[in-house]
């Protein structure tokens, strides 16, 4: 038992049976749905006259299309309104809980489930959304699925899946000041590439990971998918249990002790066998910024944009495409690249600790958002918004020229009114810098930590956040 990984234990606990195809029918403990990938799945159920046997194991919210400014209904965008009506009707008809704007529980799906204690260690979690990997921070096996599979889970609470291999990503040492979980994962992606994880689940371990808070672990697991790994996870420990205790849907009373005992058992054994192990040192990680069109195109903020020769030859065409699209050259320093828009939010970095850190950097800097920059901060959930306002973070943001919005996915993928225009460059705390990702077909995205976005907004260009954190008074603007 002790030589097995969490992945293998959780998989075996949830395996219902072997299917004739050789795949496993896997029970899904928590199914999350949102408005973009679920309507067609419900339509497929209706077509076949199927019911939802475990409606209490599916939870719905709305996030992608929700406007972050005026949320009054009906929405100005009629297509968005149609999608809202569809999820409301579907949830009502099939008896599924829906967290609506204004309920205090709405938000980006990967933020609300953990904050309400719905995501628990040892569970399988599925959602029609690739960033479902986020929930692995709790020691759950969580993966994104397509709409036909959303239909499968609704109709059977199971999926047909093949077991993944497990790669351990061992990170040891202390992160240096100004270096965050986001930098850690961008650094890992840079070294293991965007496709290096295909076929794997990533287990994040080591003293650096152990020292991360739950919110930081979520940031790391969130982007496992950007490395090609379908899921990423961290073994549950005291940090996990402390986070969960007292949350609305977490076990309580005598059940709590039983739950903790079970959660401890599902963690990887001390001599667990992995299909692969990669090691990193926390001290090697700099604040990291992407310069290209894939999340693995990252460099330390002190570095220059790499020459294509530093990549394998099959990447050269993509790298050249990236130089051209981003209008950046090899050898150019990433620090100093001008930005037009600054966005803090998303399921990667839209949590309370992200906003606190942004506020800390803004206060240390002392200036206001550069004239040429539009900067906005979007809490990942209504609960995050309420908590941030209770601490007065919104006042800090607004006083320094940032807009403060309502919860949603916002400009992470711009299915709502928040979009880049033309060739604008954004400094973004989100997870994808794909061509056109942020709403303009020619728009450009530089991914970085929320603290780095905050300082980029104030300076109008990519700037090393450590210069602000180390010398706060010197950087203050008149």
């Amino acid at each position: 038992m002790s030589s097995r990984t969490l992945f293998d234990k959780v998989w075996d606990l949830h395996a219902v049976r072997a299917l004739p195809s050789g795949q496993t029918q896997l029970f899904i403990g928590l199914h999350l749905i949102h408005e973009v990938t679920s309507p067609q799945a419900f339509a497929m159920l209706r077509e076949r006259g199927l019911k939802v046997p475990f409606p209490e194991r599916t939870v719905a919210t709305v996030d992608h299309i929700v406007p972050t400014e005026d949320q009054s209904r009906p929405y100005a965008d009629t297509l968005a309104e149609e999608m809202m009506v569809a999820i409301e009707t579907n949830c009502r008809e099939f008896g599924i809980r829906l967290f609506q704007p204004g309920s205090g529980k709405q938000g980006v799906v990967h933020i609300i489930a953990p904050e309400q204690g719905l995501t628990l260690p040892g569970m399988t979690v599925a959602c029609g959304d690739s960033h479902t990997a986020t929930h692995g921070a709790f020691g759950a096996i969580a993966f994104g699925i397509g709409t036909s599979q959303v239909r499968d889970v609704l109709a059977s609470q199971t999926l047909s899946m093949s077991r993944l291999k497990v790669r351990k990503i061992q990170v040891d040492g202390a992160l240096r000041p100004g270096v965050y979980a986001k930098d850690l994962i961008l650094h890992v992606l840079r070294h293991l590439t965007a496709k290096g994880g295909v076929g794997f689940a990533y287990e994040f371990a080591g003293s650096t990971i152990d020292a991360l808070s739950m919110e930081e672990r979520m940031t790391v697991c969130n982007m496992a998918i950007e490395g090609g790994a379908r899921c990423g996870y961290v073994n549950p420990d005291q940090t996990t249990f402390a986070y969960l205790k007292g949350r609305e849907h977490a076990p309580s009373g005598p059940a709590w002790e039983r739950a903790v005992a079970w959660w401890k058992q599902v963690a990887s054994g001390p001599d667990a066998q992995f299909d692969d192990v990669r090691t990193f040192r926390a001290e090697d990680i700099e604040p990291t910024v992407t310069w290209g069109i894939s999340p693995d195109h990252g460099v330390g903020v002190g570095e220059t944009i790499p020459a294509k020769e530093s990549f394998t030859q099959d990447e050269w065409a993509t790298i050249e495409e990236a130089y051209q699209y981003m209008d950046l050259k090899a050898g150019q320093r990433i620090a100093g690249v001008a930005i037009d828009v600054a966005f803090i939010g998303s399921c990667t970095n839209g949590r309370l600790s992200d906003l606190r850190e942004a506020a800390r950097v803004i206060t240390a800097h002392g200036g206001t958002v550069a004239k040429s920059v539009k900067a906005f901060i979007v809490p990942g959930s209504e609960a995050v918004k309420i908590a941030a306002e209770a601490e007065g973070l919104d006042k800090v943001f607004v006083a320094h020229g940032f807009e403060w919005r309502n919860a949603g996915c916002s400009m992470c993928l711009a299915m709502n009114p928040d979009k880049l225009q033309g060739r604008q460059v954004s400094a973004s705390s989100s997870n994808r810098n794909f061509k056109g990702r942020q709403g303009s077909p020619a728009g450009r995205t530089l991914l970085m930590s929320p603290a780095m976005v905050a300082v980029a907004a104030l300076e109008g260009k990519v700037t090393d956040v450590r210069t602000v954190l180390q010398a706060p008074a010197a950087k203050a603007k008149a």
Partner: protein
Amino acid sequence: MSSVVSLVSGRALPLRGNDIDTDRIIPARFLRCVTFDGLGQFAFEDDRKQLTAQSKTHPFDDRRFAGASVLVVNSNFGCGSSREHAPQAIAKWGIRGIVGVSFSEIFFGNCVAMGLPCLRVSAADAEALQGDIERDPAADVTLDLAKGEVRCGKRSVPATMAEGPRKQFLTGQWDALGQLVSGIDEVRAAAKKLPYVGGFA
């Protein structure tokens, strides 16, 4: 419900480039919909428009490849989001089989669930096939799942797919839903054994 998929054959369309993500296959603004109908015409919309603006032609707009039913790509195709809108757009465009060096996992799984086979070939073979098609767009490309090969004219190259999905296509069981639902009693039994399902009571 589903049918056997062992041979897909037809004229082909070469689409060069690694890491082509789902945002490029179908830009996010087209996800504002409640059905997949009509997505086909928007496949690669932004890439196509951009090339048109530069007086170039995207393969999806190239008349030589009109009516193609096989798509030949390079590596890590379909990376990014889990949206089934991406393979749906490709399928609604008329593609019935994809050949490439590698596919993102979720994209591949979505394709299986839709009955759209994705076969893997070596990087050199993918490029050779793309070259063949560019030289002779009228040539048929055949995906032979049973034999594990892709053929184009005189060229025949080994092609692979993970054994599980390959079996699903060959036995007509790529649509897993029927089986999953038929096992509902076993599902209920399995759920009972999970302590969290009962609230750790």
